[in-house]
């Protein structure tokens, strides 16, 4: 897509957000859409690492958790203003990513997957067992609502607009990175690390950079999550959560920013829709995911585009 197409896409996106926020009053739907927004942030952050740079992470929920817990502890235990807790939450996750990334990113393929998986489990265990600070397995209660200046982001609508504004900003930010010198270098690592080094890309440094960036964005989602629900527990940031983020990226379409949005929407909405199937819910859920992977192995976004292109080609003839 060219520059103009992107601008139109952003405008349509912004319009859709405003319309939805304006028209929808049902608290349940607002909450659901806020969760889609948070999941989009998570999928987008992992997509930068996995879809574009080709580095798998099976422990991404750890950064989501770090973001949530740092702000919870600072704003509740230490009474820090949420606005000030934000840079601390994002910064901590980035610092952890940097420290963990130096040895981990030396690995590749399955080994990197295992390394990040181990990291995610360690963070989950720390959150669960360090009860004096994190509240342990029973969770952390009493997180204050998000206040920025005089505005309190408490009502569903307020928070809806905040989250989706952040999503739009992050979409633009990621798009810009991908289309730049840095993004091209990232994609070159994905296509062939040997060749990337041979044209002068410092692959080690760049992988670390995008890992840190990605962790920061996941922590931002964690921050927003904590101030949305006021109560967090380690279960939300477990291994299963990491896998869910990976699934969103794969289903939505790797190396596509709109794919992140699509994947996050589908995986947030699907369980809600499938309530109708009651005990067969998980079976249907699994079948849908399998179906997508079998028939659209490059994800929904790419898959739909492929079908469309094929249709047009056949039609032109």
């Amino acid at each position, binding site marked *: 897509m060219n520059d103009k197409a992107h601008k139109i896409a952003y405008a349509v996106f912004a319009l859709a957000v405003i319309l939805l926020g304006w028209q929808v009053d049902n608290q349940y739907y607002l909450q659901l859409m806020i969760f889609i927004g948070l999941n989009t942030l998570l999928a987008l952050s992992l997509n930068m690492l996995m879809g574009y740079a080709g580095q798998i992470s099976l422990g991404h929920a750890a950064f989501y958790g770090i973001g949530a817990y740092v702000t919870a502890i600072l704003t509740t235990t230490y009474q820090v203003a949420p606005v000030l807790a934000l840079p601390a939450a994002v910064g901590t996750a980035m610092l952890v990513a940097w420290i963990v990334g130096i040895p981990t990113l030396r690995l590749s393929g399955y080994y990197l997957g295992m390394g990040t998986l181990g990291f995610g489990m360690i963070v989950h265990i720390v959150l669960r067992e360090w009860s004096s600070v994190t509240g342990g397995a029973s969770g952390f209660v009493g997180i204050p609502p998000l206040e920025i200046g005089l505005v309190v982001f408490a009502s569903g609508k307020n928070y809806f607009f905040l989250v989706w504004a952040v999503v739009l900003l992050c979409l633009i930010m990621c798009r810009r990175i991908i289309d730049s010198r840095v993004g091209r270098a990232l994609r070159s690592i994905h*296509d062939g690390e040997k060749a990337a080094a041979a*044209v002068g890309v410092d692959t080690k440094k760049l992988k670390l950079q995008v890992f840190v960036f990605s962790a920061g964005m996941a922590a931002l989602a964690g921050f927003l999550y904590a101030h949305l629900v006021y109560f967090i527990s380690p279960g939300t940031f477990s291994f299963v959560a990491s896998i869910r983020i990976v699934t969103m990226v794969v289903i939505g379409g790797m190396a596509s920013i709109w794919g992140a949005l699509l994947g996050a929407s589908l995986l947030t909405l699907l369980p809600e829709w499938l309530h109708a199937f009651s005990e067969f819910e998980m079976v249907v859920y699994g079948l849908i995911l399998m179906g997508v992977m079998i028939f659209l192995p490059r994800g929904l976004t790419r898959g739909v585009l492929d079908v469309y292109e094929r249709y047009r080609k056949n039609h032109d003839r």
Partner: protein
Amino acid sequence: MTDNSHLLEIRDIHKAFGGVRALREIDFSLEKGSITGLIGPNGAGKTTLFNVITGVFPADRGEIRFAGQSVTSYAVHERVELGIARTFQNVELFESMTVLENILVGLHTRTRCGMIGSIFKFPRIRREEKQARKRATELLEFVDLADHAPRRSSDLPFGWQRLLEVARAMAAAPRLLLLDEPAAGLNMSETRQLGDLIHQIRDQGITILLVEHDMSLTMSISDKIVVLDQGRKIAEDTPRSVQSDEAVMAAYLGKGKNSGHGR
């Protein structure tokens, strides 16, 4: 001590993989602005030497000097920055990217934009991007691929992919260009075009080292030939003298089984 007329100096390079001694006592220099052909039977150590020169893996012993500076401990990307670029035996393009983008990645070391710069798109960054695209188009024109800029690189026919890879290596503004079997898989007219292109690159002042099995091409364009056999240098001379060198004849013909590579 180094002398000024040599761009690359290879000093007593040794490299072993387990028990296999891939390179032994390799010692030669490349004169600035020259074309040197590196030949030898399969398994002679040509690609290994390329990998040692570009820094893919370190030598066990010996030194690589580039433009009077020791680069032995430098990483691959640092050597590119200094001016050592290469192509691969099996064309290694970035397949998910367009033809133009491949060249733009090639310009990586000649551009500066970082993560923060790309997010905020400062005027400086926009200018740099514009210049990079202009330079990339020039390079595509140089190899006659400008009309195919928006195509996916994997959609190009093989011969064009080779040219694109050469142009991508040229984007790094190298002083030394290493070509690993650039004529492999090309037909005769494509090979002739490639020969012209290599001459044009040399005329821009770029020193060239090439590994090539196409003997007629190698002998016709090289100023000097270095012959490797079983990890050792067995000859270093002008194309004419090398062709009548007894050790070379023995390496290629004497053992019979490798003779098929000469043409």
